């Protein structure tokens, strides 16, 4: 299946992905409701986006007591709003911090790959997020480790 591949070294921290994602999630622009989040590394010099890797283990699915998390047509774990009771167990179970809870709707929400055309990948001006048929993995681990050794790399 295709997944969101993160190329952290290409991210410039413009946060356009968050805007595009929130538009898909809510119909408005509201980064607080985005399910892709850009984090700073080494203070102000490096940024990288992070979102659900659609991991095989599916801890969120396992934890959900009402079976509200299912797998959609493009293989993404997706929250069924009419089943979700807002207990937040999934947000605790997810080891990556990519399950979110919206107090306005009292539902959990997460990346559902926009049904196969992820808005974040389309919005990213530097191709730091791509939608590819690859095995998902921890895209940020090496990058984060490298940040501790040197602040900047020679990328544009």
């Amino acid at each position, binding site marked *: 299946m295709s997944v969101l591949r993160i190329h952290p070294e290409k991210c410039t921290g413009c946060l356009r992905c968050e805007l595009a994602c929130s538009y898909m999630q809510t119909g408005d622009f*509201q980064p607080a409701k985005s399910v892709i989040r850009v984090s700073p590394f080494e203070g102000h010099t490096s940024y990288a986006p992070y979102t659900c890797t659609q991991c095989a283990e599916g801890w969120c699915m396992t934890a959900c007591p009402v079976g509200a998390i299912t797998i959609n047509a493009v293989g993404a774990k997706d929250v069924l709003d009419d089943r979700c009771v807002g207990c937040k167990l999934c947000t605790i179970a997810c080891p990556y911090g990519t399950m979110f809870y919206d107090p306005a709707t009292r539902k959990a929400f997460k990346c559902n790959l926009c049904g196969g055309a992820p808005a974040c990948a389309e919005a990213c001006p530097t191709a730091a997020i791509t939608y590819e048929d690859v095995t998902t993995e921890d895209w940020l681990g090496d990058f984060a480790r490298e940040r501790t050794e040197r602040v900047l790399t020679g990328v544009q």
Partner: protein
Amino acid sequence: MTPATVTAPKQPRTKAATTARPGGFAGNLLRVDLTRRTSRAEPWAPETMRELLGGVGLGAMILYRETATKGGKGNVAWDHPDNRLVLGTGPLAGLPVWGTGGLTVCTIGPGTNGPTSTQANGFFGTNLKYCGYDAIIIQGQAKDWVYLYINDDVVELRDARALIGLDTWDTQGALYQETGLAGHQLSVYSIGPAGENLVRFAAIQGDYGHVASKNGCGAVMGKKRLKAVAIVKGTKALHAADPRGVIQAADEMAHDLRTDPSARSLYEYGTLPGVVNLSKMGALPIKNYTTNLTSNVAGADMSAWEAPKLRENFDHRGHQCNACGMHHCHMSIIRQGDRKGAIVDEPEYEGWSGCGWAIGSADRDGVAWLNTECDRACVDVNEWGWLCGWVMECQEKGYITREQLGFELKWGDIKGAHRLLQMVSRREGLGNLLAEGVKRAAEKLGGPAKECAIYIEKGATPRGHDHRARWEEMLDTCTSSTATMETGNPVHPTEIGQPARVNPFDGEQVAKYVAGLRGRRSFEDSLGICIFTSRTRLESICRALSAATGWTFTVDEALRFGRRTAAINRATALRCGHTGAMEYPSTRYGSTPVDGPAKGQAIRAQWEKMLDTWYAEVGFDRKTGRPWPKTLKGLGLDWLAKDLWGKKA
């Protein structure tokens, strides 16, 4: 540190809006009174949003309405508590249009003691809009140092005494620590020592490398004892009338920037290509306008100043503003020499100019470092270049002695320049006089020293070019009401009925051109968009604005809006005491280049004619500087015509 006061903004009771709020706007103006230590959110009407948009459109009107002295004849001075500091965004800020982190600062500044409009980016506009505000209006004066903290509905004036003395980067770091936030989660715009010490060309710096630099707006902040404005990335929603339309217009503008020959180098390298390109036109200022030959700078190898080589000299990484895909802003690391490992903000062209060529240095590492030191001290890098270059020339010629300055400062001496920067930003020794800016310092020293100083009679200094080879910018700078270029560079001039190019040394053609281009810049500076990402067709920008707001905003309305804004700023400037007699370059600024590509081109010989033409074209009275009643009425400013002309209107 505990909050000195906690005042959640109150919603005043207002009449229900007659029409729905247009998209793109957060809907509130945040008014902060530092004297009373209060704040409140003021909803503004949809009709006013269309009339003023934001940025300089909003700021100009606030200054005109709120900074008059009693009776409306005079204006409060820059250091009066009733002066306003308007930190405005605009309807495109925070949306997915490239470069929309926009901040426009409008205030009465100490350079000209008149109005200002000066821009910066980063994430100020984004964070503020998502907190629910379109602009911050700051008035009054705090008793002791405070900083303004905004987190959605929580607005606090917090004790900033522990931050005093810190430079702008360290202030941001300290506020990251205090709030537990980092990166774009917290946008911080602050002043460093220069602002605290009321240096007349102090800037407001934010988000590591973004600077609203003109007319000493940092000194206004210092006078108000406001050390910083820290805005958490808000959690509210921004509604767009046609969100897909906004994204489509943004993509179209991005395509233009990537492919249009006039914008492509900017897309790839930001303003870096300016150094080499301008040197070929004689518009790169070298050694305080004493020469236009790069070979007169020790160690200058122009091949090393080509944009790719300039960038590759450093380890670097993109550091873009909101939603921006330009390869423009970068953070860099110095690879070699004394300052190896130092993190700097990649200088803009004006940094390379003001901290380099204008002071006779071609040391790329040293210039980049000094440029960031200017940002950290919060000193306008343009005026810095004119000031430091002037001191260097004066010392070379014996107009300022070693004893006066306290040390010897030669062309290209980066360490010495840094020492001078510290003296100026802390007002130590001769630095106390130099902190008054080039014009006032030169007038104080007088004689031949005054003759070699670069300034405008209004009290400001030009941007970082040699305008003796860019006449349109010198005319724009001198006739502007905002202490810096008000019309700006032509972008797709034929789109608004202007010729594609004019003879750059024909005063009349140049004056007509500057007058004809008027309006576009003021419009763009009201939207919350960057000057560089708006280097696209005006029609595309209007389309983005229309999609965001739901209005049908045309190119004609945009130009009309911009000219209206400029007329309002002109009215405030006149009230501040500006006159036509101040619309002249200083002796050196208006001198004739002695060498280089523009050698012998004498702008002063054509200056009067240029002013005559410009005044006739823009519809202003040459004698008094006032826009004619006919001009004002044509812009729908009948009320202003009455204010300026009384019964004659």
